[in-house]
């Protein structure tokens, strides 16, 4: 199980490296081009590429962050075992729900 978590965290790190680069690039483009919120939404609404990239981004975050947080909590606190894993599974679902809600809203679904 730990090996799978280790592998999942490293694999999602690759996705995050690309996704964060795209995200920052998009922010730089939007601010330098003086785009308004309406301009941005006009570009993202119905854009399948936007949807695919940001769904991958959200999925990677929902996998990567709870695994890292689990390691931090195990090292810095006495919290161990199933209750910790359960709490972090919930945290993962929360990230997934909030992230997908935001992506779908910007996609205009």
């Amino acid at each position, binding site marked *: 199980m730990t090996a*799978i978590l280790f*592998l999942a965290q490293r694999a999602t790190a690759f996705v995050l490296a690309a996704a964060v680069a795209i995200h920052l690039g998009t922010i730089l483009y939007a601010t330098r081009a003086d785009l308004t919120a309406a301009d941005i939404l006009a570009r993202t609404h119905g854009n399948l590429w936007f949807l695919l990239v940001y769904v991958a981004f959200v999925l990677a975050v929902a996998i990567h962050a709870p695994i890292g947080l689990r390691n931090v909590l195990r090292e810095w606190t006495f919290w161990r075992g199933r209750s910790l894993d359960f709490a972090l599974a919930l945290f993962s679902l929360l990230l997934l729900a909030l992230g997908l809600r935001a992506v779908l809203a910007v996609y205009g679904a």
Partner: protein
Amino acid sequence: MSGMLQVEVWRGAAAGKFQTFAIQRREHQTILDVVTEIQREHDATLSYRFACRVGMCGSCAMVVNGRPRWTCRTRVREVVGGGERLRLEPLRNFTVVKDLAVEMTQFFDKWKAAHGYFEPGREPAADFAVVPPASPQRQAADAGIECIGCGVCYSACDVVSWDRDYLGPAALNRAWTLINDVRDRDATRLSAVGGSDGCQACHTHMSCTSFCPKAIAPTYAIAGLKRAVLRRAWRGTS
């Protein structure tokens, strides 16, 4: 070589304080010589541990001026240079029994937990194993085989200080040498070292590798274990 050394020595157990002794500096004097002189000439109640005095037994390790070291093979000159202050503490990450002597039980229990012992199998080998010294597996085993179990790496490891259940560099290094020993028949060692407190918990700080008095690199042994555990998980045989 002349002058005096001001030697601060930890006295007590978990709670305690430093006691200072003035010791004559001598040519080629080791840290262990200093401790022995304190015990024989100044305070016979000082507790510490040593046996071979030649870097084989691994029993005299202490924290010297903030760094874990084997004291029988460490000269005072290497540590203090032209200075005169020496601070001796028991190894970090161990329970202190008294003064400079620490409890090693947990350390060796973790060797057992990591299956850090040779497993010959149920049936004795029918013939001698042919082990070419130049084979990659034997080279990997040889790289870590000279561990003397001194506890310096365990004392230096930050992950051990954060997670008291972490198996630690010495036990994992031993497991790696055995995984690369073609004669060994333990099929469950990777499971033993692949849990939450095993090799994946290593942060690759490399303190173990930088402080090991035998110039072993447990970090690379742990990296090897990580790869082996991941390969096995990838193939779905965990």
